[in-house]
């Protein structure tokens, strides 16, 4: 009885108003103040990967699914940037604002509620994903690796994927006793996803159970599939599963993370 009520409270619908955007705007203001630092990593990182892995390693690798190696990994770099930017924004970034800067304490002394603060953080994390992946998309396009007009839909995928990873990240933040704690999800979740989500080689090269595991539990797999399909214009029915996976997981983690954070902060 008690535990079922506990579960009910972590999935109760948060009461959100337009004030979510005030929190989002605060983060945008900070971002714009330091935009030079913020724009460089997503601009330079994909260039290094494309040159080193695409041109360098790529000469040793045969075509994958009819694609030159550099064309195969380019969309994955876009998807990885969605994951990294949103996940790290809502772990390290949110933790610093919550714990060291006491920014959340300052905001909840105003008519903005704690639910709205966390929702604002999540939407901001999704926005970071949109910004970073769009820069990477630009780099990939500059290398001539975008071959379908469907790429115009990638920002939509970026926002949704970013929201999902932000919400997953925020769940970890709600559990984090200190900032070093984030080494665990970074190492045990982000690194395996970075390598095992059909990013640098096709998932089909792996043993069957790993393929199933990746599709079931590594959400980056689905972001990579969608981004790759939209970059090269190769739509398949299996993409629907990826879309549904992300669309279903996002609201669940969104609501869960808000309630967990509320429980952590309001005692």
């Amino acid at each position, binding site marked *: 009885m008690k535990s079922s009520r506990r579960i009910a409270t972590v999935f109760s619908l948060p009461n959100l108003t337009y*004030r979510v955007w*005030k929190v989002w*705007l*605060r983060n945008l*203001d*900070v971002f714009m*103040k*330091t935009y030079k630092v913020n724009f460089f990593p997503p601009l330079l990182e994909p260039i290094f990967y494309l040159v080193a892995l695409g041109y360098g390693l790529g000469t040793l690798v045969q075509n994958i699914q009819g694609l030159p190696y550099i064309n195969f990994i380019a969309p994955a770099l876009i998807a990885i940037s969605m994951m990294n930017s949103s996940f790290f924004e809502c772990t390290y970034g949110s933790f610093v604002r919550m714990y060291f*800067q*006491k*920014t959340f*304490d*300052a*905001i*909840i*002394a*105003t*008519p*903005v*509620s704690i639910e709205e603060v966390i929702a604002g953080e999540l939407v901001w994390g999704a926005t970071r994903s949109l910004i970073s992946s769009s820069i990477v998309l630009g780099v990939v396009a500059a290398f001539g690796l975008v071959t379908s007009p469907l790429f115009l839909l990638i920002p939509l995928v970026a926002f949704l994927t970013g929201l999902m990873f932000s919400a997953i990240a925020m769940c970890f933040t709600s559990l984090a006793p200190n900032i070093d704690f984030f080494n665990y999800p970074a190492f045990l979740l982000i690194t395996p996803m970075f390598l095992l989500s059909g990013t640098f080689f096709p998932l089909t090269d792996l043993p069957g159970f790993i393929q199933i595991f990746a599709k079931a539990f590594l959400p980056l797999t689905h972001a990579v599939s969608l981004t790759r399909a939209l970059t090269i214009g190769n739509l398949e029915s299996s993409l629907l599963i990826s879309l549904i996976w992300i669309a279903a997981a996002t609201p669940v983690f969104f609501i869960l993370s808000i309630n967990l954070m509320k429980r952590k902060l*309001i*005692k």
Partner: protein
Amino acid sequence: MRVSFGRSSMGLDALIKAQNLTKRYDDFLAVDSISFEVFKGECCGFLGPNGAGKTTTIKMIHCVLPLTAGSLIVSGLDVSKRQREIKKMVGVAPQEDNLDPDFTVLHNLLVYARYFDIPKSEALKRSDELLKFFQLGEKRNVIIDQLSTGMKRRLILARALINEPQILLLDEPTTGLDPQARHLIWDRIRSLKKQGVTIILTTHYMDEASELCDRTLIMDNGIIIEEGKPADLVRKHVGEDVLEVDYGDEVMKDLQEKFPDARLEVIGDRIRVFTSQPHGVFESFLKDFPTKGAAIRNANLEDVFLKLTGRRLRE
């Protein structure tokens, strides 16, 4: 403990009313069923050692901590239900520095104003006035990191006023400041009081409480142990004069004989003599007993505080 409701009969309205207000953490009772009222336009001080429950009470008043039990009404609104409305009319200056380190002084105020839905032009106008009021005008475009502790404190106070609050909650507003900064802040608090702002203040400085507060509530271990005007409390608990003498067995005996009703307290190598006798009671003793290191001083709120809460260190 019940507090006197005398002032409401004088036509003053209770702006904040707590009844059996309780806050319990797992196995720790931070606030233990306290009842009090704060009247419109007064400056009410919450005094107490660390862990007494002052900050917890303040946080319940501005709706960031839910109550465990009891009721708390702020300006006619229930804190458990009408949080946004209450937060709109309350200004809070917390103990900790939670300014936004990424922004300048002015930008801190503007971003904060946005949380209250204050339009940009109005926010700019108010910010300019507040920065002038707290003598921060020249710092308006400086990043927070480059401010001194005193400037940060003043900015936190300015920020607490951006929504033109009816009620101002100041949690240790002058802790860690130099005397110049303290006096500037005292002066500003007095001027806000004149403008009709109701102020609740916590402090560890008894001179600050005597200086600013119309009324003080002394808390310890989650309950209110005494309540009243600072001067009344001093008279009631420690009288008017305090005699301090260097310790000596001879002197001690003599004091006990001369002032059988007095309370003698030995702290380090000094004896303090408290009495309920009126002003001037120690004059003759000082004349007959020209000991070195003997002095008469006025009794003060710190004497009351230490008498009521003891000398044991907290936390």
